[in-house]
Structure formats: C-alpha cells, structure tokens
C-alpha cells in the first residue's frame, strides 16, 4: 500500500485513526507505481505555479463544486493540490469519488469544467483520455479531478460533478468480460 492510499485511510477519519496513523508510519515510500500519475500531475503543475511552500497558506485558491443534487459547495485548496486532494481534504460528500485513489485506473473523479477554465488546464495525456472515455456523462470539457492541479489563475472556478444515474451508462461499451 502506498503513502497516498494510507493517507486516504487517514482521511476517512470516521473511525480508527490510530490504526491509520500506524499505517502511515509503516508505508513511507512515495514512488510506488500507484502514486506515480498523481505525483507526476502535481509536479507538472508546480512548474507553473512555483509557490514557495511557506507562502502557500496565504495563497489559497477558491473552488466551487456543484454536486449531483445541484448543491454548490465553495472551499479553498492550496496551489499544487489536485482537485481530488481538495475533495478528500475538505471531506466533500461526493459518492464514490476517487475510487482508485488518483492512479488513473478509474473515472470516478470525473469533473466537468466551464469552457474558459477548461482551456487553461493544460495538456491532457492519452491515459487520462482513455479513462475519461469510460466516464458517465462525458462532455467536451471533462477532466479527471486527480489530474487537475490548482493554480492561482484558477481562482474562483466552478466545477460540476456529473450525474451518475443508470440511464447514462454506456452499457454496451466498456465491458470487462463479454465478447464482441
């Protein structure tokens, strides 16, 4: 298990935080394959943001999430944090968000951006596109929250959590076991 996943266990503090604390101390290697994409995404982003760590608390970025029920929640995150980090840190109640813990192995952190914001987000990898192709309610301005990191220029943006109702499923596509 990676530090990131241990971190997430820490996050769901609802129970047993002492056990989780020992999990963190037991797993202190960061660069496992499962954390690779997240780390890369945020390093890539930092090249643009370059905020000294000491100043980060004064340089928070405000983000609003519109949840599936239409409720809008406004929170602050640090530059360099991914939107998945923000959701976890702020304990936002989005069902099933980030199932693979930011390792580009699912599409549960799918978010829809405003068009002008989407254009600012920088390059998108083939691997992220591959996962987005399996996302419910895919739009032209869709990204995975684990791959989008906050920068000061994104201050005030609003992102929408797509609906995940049954009739939006691509039931004939994206199968794991049926033949063609």
């Amino acid at each position, binding site marked *: 298990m990676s530090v990131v996943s241990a971190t997430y266990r820490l996050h*769901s503090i609802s*129970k047993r*935080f002492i056990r989780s604390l020992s999990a963190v101390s037991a797993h202190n290697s960061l660069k496992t*394959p499962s954390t690779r994409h997240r780390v890369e995404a945020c390093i890539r982003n930092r090249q643009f943001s370059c905020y000294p760590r000491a100043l980060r608390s004064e340089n928070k970025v405000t983000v609003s999430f519109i949840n599936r029920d239409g409720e809008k929640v406004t929170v602050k995150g640090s530059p360099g944090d991914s939107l998945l980090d923000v959701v976890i840190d702020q304990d936002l109640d989005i069902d099933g968000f980030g199932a693979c*813990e930011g390792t580009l*192995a*699912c599409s549960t952190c799918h978010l829809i951006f405003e068009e002008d914001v989407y254009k600012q987000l920088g390059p998108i990898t083939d691997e992220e596109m591959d996962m987005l192709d399996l996302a419910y309610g895919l739009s032209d301005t869709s990204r995975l929250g684990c791959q989008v990191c906050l920068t000061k220029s994104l201050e005030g943006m609003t992102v929408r959590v797509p609906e995940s109702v049954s009739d939006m499923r691509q039931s*004939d596509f994206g*199968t*794991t076991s049926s033949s063609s």
Partner: protein
Amino acid sequence: MNTSRMFVFKPMKSLLTKCTRATVTSGLRRLACTPSSCPRVCIVGGGPAGFYTAQHLLKAHPAIQVDIYERLPIPFGLVRFGVAPDHPEVKNVINTFTQTAQHERCSFHGNVTVGKDVSVEELQQAYHAVVLSYGAEGNRTLGVPGENLSGVYSAKDFVGWYNGLPSNKGLNPDLSSETAVILGQGNVALDVARILLSPLDVLTKTDITQPSLQALAASRVRRVLIVGRRGPLQVACTIKELREMVNLPGNRPDMLSADFQGIAEVLKDLPRPRKRLTELMMKAVQERPAGAPLTSRQWGFRFLRSPVEVLPSPDLTQTAGIRLGINRLEGSGEGARAVPTGETEDVECGMVISSIGYQSLPIDPAVPFDHHKAIIPNAMGRVQQASGLYCSGWVKRGPTGVIATTMNDSFDTARVLIKDMETGVLDVSTVKPGSHTVTPLLQKRGVNPVSFSDWEKIDAEEMKRGTAVGKPREKLLDVTEMLKTAHS
C-alpha cells in the same frame, strides 16, 4: 521531496476536527437506536458489489447494521481474483473496502457458503433484508465439439489460476505450443493475452502466484490470436487494455489490414470512446513493422470468426487447432449481428482459451432466477416477487462493466433499500437477531466463520511471504491453509 511531505502531513490538520465530529455523531446514534432495534441487513458476497452496497447503506442510515457473508475465507472477490496482477492501481479500492469492513456497524463473515451452510430463508428470518451480491462464478460454454479436449480452458479458470483462486490451483495449463487462440475480445481476453505475452521481469514484481510465474517462465507461447465473431467496430475491450497491448515490451501487433477497409470513412461519425479505440487499433495495424526488427512475440485480433470445432491431435487427446466459421455483419454499429457465411478456416494452435463471458448461477431454490438471462430477475435491485430480497452487481445486471459500473449499480440498490425502509415497503419494526442467531447456527453445522481481523492475519502472512520474494504479496492458494492462518 516536497510532494511526499505534503501527502503525509496534509490530512493531519483535519484529523482533530473530523474525530470530534465522529464522536458527536456516534453519540447521537446511540440516543437514536439501541442495537437490538436497529435495522439489520446482510449481504451475500464479499466482492466489489457487496462492499459498495454495504458502504452506501452504512453511510445513508445512521443505525443500520450490515453483515457481509462470503464463501471464501478472504474478502474482495474479483478485485483479488479477477483484476490482473499487473494492475495494482485498480486494487486500491481495497483500502475503501477495508474501511467499510472495519466500520463499527459492519462485520465480515468469511468461509460461509450461503445456500449450503445457511439458506437464504434462514438469513431472511435473521435479517430485515438480504442483498444478493454474489457475482458470476460460472462461465458461458462454447457449445462446440472438442470443447473438453486437453488444452481448452475457460478464461475464468485461467485468470483464477494466475490470481490464486483456490479452486483453480491445479489448472496446470499446457503452455507448450507456440500459438494460443483466445475466443472473445473483451478486457478479460486482453488480460489473458497480456499475461501470456508479458516479459517475465514485469510479472515478477506483481502479486501473481509463484506456480503460475514458474509456468509462464517455461511457456513457449509466442503468438496470441484474439478472435471475435464481429468486426473492429464491435470489439468489447476498453482502450486502456488495448493501449497496454500496443505498448507491450517485446511484442508486436499482428493485425490484418484488410479487416480495416472502409473503417477510416466511418470514424468521424463514431462517439468519442469508440472512435479513439478504433483509431488506436488502426495505428497498431499501420505499425506492423515492414523492415523493423522482428521481436519474438506477437498478438493480433482476428475478426468475423466464430468457433465451430476444436480440432484434436492425431491421438485425439490434445488440442491441435481450431476450426473457425467465417461471418459477415448484418447491420452496423454496436447492434450489428454476426451471420455465418458457411465458410470455415482452420488455425493451428495448442491452446484455446474461451473468454466469452462469465455467468451467474442460482444460489438457492428460494431465490427467483432467470435462466435465460442468467441474472436474478429484479426491478432496480428489488428481487421480483420476493419481499425483503435485493440484489446488486453482476447477479443483478449481468457480467459486464468496469468497477465504477458496479459501484454505481450497488449504490443504486442501497438507495432503493433505504427508501423502502423509509416508506415502509420494507418492514423494520420487528426486532431481528442478525448474526446472533446465524453464527451459532453455523457453528452447530461445523462451519467456523472467518472475521475481518482473522483475514488480516492471512493478509499479514501473505505480505510477509511476498516481501521474502520481492513481490507485494504471495497469496495463500489453499483454503485449509487460509483457515489455519486465520484461526491461529
């Protein structure tokens, strides 16, 4: 490095506030409900569907008690026995499942076979509701002559073998021939192809079982043909798995460019996922190296082919090839049908792996079952004509979809169940004993359930054995050994 500090320390700051909140909530909970009067739900099956259903039930109701019954002594179902060993990222969902299992209102009861050790009817007497989430343990058969020859395997068994499913421990597949034919073009087919063709140094770093690693090290399989009854526009795999094949070190694609005639013209009208998948396939066709150095291994799709007969060796014991019927397509797009032309072609191969789909099986005569669709007949997860019975996952909708599909599907069933409790459709006014009567019943029948903390002993032992050989985990392969470790 900065990032590592950030990942480790960031959550700490919210630790205290969250703990305070949790304490307050559980205090309220105690006021609201005494354990004996709580709604009790049990879930049959400890795979992704079971755990995601439990997760949402626990979240949506402040007092509900959830028990998960699992046939094996170990949890997580296909996340452990289905997800390929070289996809450790997908297995991160285990962390969330572990949190669910450790929830104060949830308990895991492994080593309990519902339908044999305890009936669904007995569970219904002990619980207000029973959710069937036991997946699809059977597989569709080919229904062609020669299917039972040595050298023919179901993908389900082959995957179970390299992933350490106890019942597939002795599969011992024959990897001595050069060509393997996989029937079916879904992600399971591609997983099997990738495991057959991956360089050994990739696999040795995974939790693939040691016996299968040794068998693969001695494998002579150099060429894998992945056969589908329809065309390139109907393949069932997803793009991530295809990209892994295209990028597989030491391998080259062996596709037939004739299969892609006319495809370029229809590309622009396809939905984005199908378009990108098709473009990647076409890239693989074009990249077929003309003067490039030949690598020793190759893989390729073969389209518009259905199995007609597995051809035996002269002594009639082994697989020597497969006769494929040639199809043409009727209609277009996702709904196109394969129609036999009457022509056939023979392909020489010593191994045939049938990957045409998993299949749910009935669990108990008391539960309705649709034998034609191989699912439990249900409306939004409510089992038809069976009050108090629900279902989620593959047994609810059939064996397709990525893990997010099962997640949403299971959340849906949990929502329906909670709604039925609120509207009174599901009567929770009577006191139900839950595991307080089921556990003694099981013990009386000689069944010794495995708790989640028992599983953690197995987990620790597997990690220890893994560390010793430089792998993330070395799975125990034998139920007796699992039980011995769990109850040590």
